[in-house]
């Protein structure tokens, strides 16, 4: 998969020879795009540690902040995919 290839390249070429922790997100639709876009700036620990308590609006706000405030490059469709993926896999359980 192209996204997986990019992610692995990022992890293993970003700096000196020290090992970096590999963090895998749960498999599911959107895993690849979420992994690549989020890991551009930060490790994926951030997602796992912020679970499972955010509401769909909570995840929407977080991803929106990453794009609008922190300048994370992503297309509208990618943003929607990432939000859906995070809600389904790392969101608060449905009541």
């Amino acid at each position, binding site marked *: 998969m192209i996204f997986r290839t990019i992610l692995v390249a990022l992890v293993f070429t*970003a*700096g*000196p020879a*020290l*090992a*970096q*922790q*590999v*963090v*895998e997100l749960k498999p599911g639709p959107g895993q690849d795009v979420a992994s690549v876009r989020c890991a*551009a*700036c*930060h*490790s994926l*620990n*951030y997602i*796992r*540690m*912020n*679970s*499972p*308590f*955010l509401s769909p609006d*909570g995840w929407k*706000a*977080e991803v929106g902040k990453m794009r609008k*405030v*922190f*300048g*994370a*490059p992503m297309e509208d469709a990618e943003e929607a995919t990432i939000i859906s993926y995070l809600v389904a896999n*790392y969101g608060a359980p449905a009541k």
Partner: protein
Amino acid sequence: MKRRDVLAGSGAALLSAGVARAAVPGMNPGLPQGTLDEVALATLPGKKPLLRLSDRPPNYEATMDAFATPITPNDRFFVRYHLAGIPEMAELRNWKLTVGGDAAGKEVSFTLPELRSLPQHQFVAVCQCSGNRRGLFQPHVAGVEWGTGAMGCARWTGVRLKDVLNRAGVKAGALEVILHGADGPVLPATPDFAKSIPMQRALDDDTLIAYEMNGAPLPHLNGFPIRLIVPGWTATYWMKHLNQIEISSKPLQNFWMAAAYRVPAGMFPVAHPFASQTNAQSTPITEIVVNSLVTNVADGATVKPGFEIKGIAWDSGSGIRTVETSLDGGAHWAPASLGQDLGHYAFRPFSAALKAAPGAVKVMVRATSNAGEVQVDKLKFNPAGYHHNVIQTLALTVA
């Protein structure tokens, strides 16, 4: 300055990726489940094992036993970064500090030897992340889900910020001092981490530029070669890798001041409000709230009928007046003994010899500052998860 990501973690972490692991023992059960699953002991270069919350940027907190002494050793001191562009030591050794801005008389710069030639000052102070204990908020709020270890107390040695500012000259109309560090974002579009403090705080005798921590150079990931020390204020102002200071006639308007690190106006009264950054709704988080932590017994532990509670208490700099314990849900409180006083900004050790009949017992601990501030019974909820200082309650078994 060229920036590179610090690659943290160990080979063991790499090999164990994808393998489910048990949570680290002793973690607070009030943390989010995802945090309990995520946190692992890991070793950064030059550090003893810390609790890793995130790898890039590195966010690591100290384990409870790091607080067995009122001074936190450098190699057990927490690490906190917002952005992953962290210069390496080789780059930081070519460090220079520039001081200027529209309210400075002139621009000046300092090498490390030039900075060290200014009068030296030293004191002990607590460095505490604004979001320490965020992970214990109910309901949970987004962010780095810190437990109780995003803090430490060190003996800081350096020069007064005001002595540095006076070399540049402070013009009438100076309002804030803006602080920049050598670390920065991965993407150019991300707002660089810059903070400001009010002029009054910048000119305070106790605001230092520190080049030593516990008698040694600052560890790389605690701000080498220098960081700002704003004792009594949360660590967001303690700029690491400090390399540029602006004396400004205008308030700093960036994400890190105007949107982040803010609390609802009036929720946490302070002695010296940050007026130039306060609006009707919110104000910057500044002064540390009174707090305490038991460090020798974990929640859920089994103890003997005669047992001792030990810990530390701290506040924004008035000092600790009392630490008290209760075994009856807060109906009656008994004073603990206070230990060595390392200064009013330092952790103050306490201990209490307690007795309880076999069975279950709940031990509550609360600190009161010399200013009369007491730890709260109920969380003052705020959306960013700051200033958690709820009275600690340990559920113990006496056997």
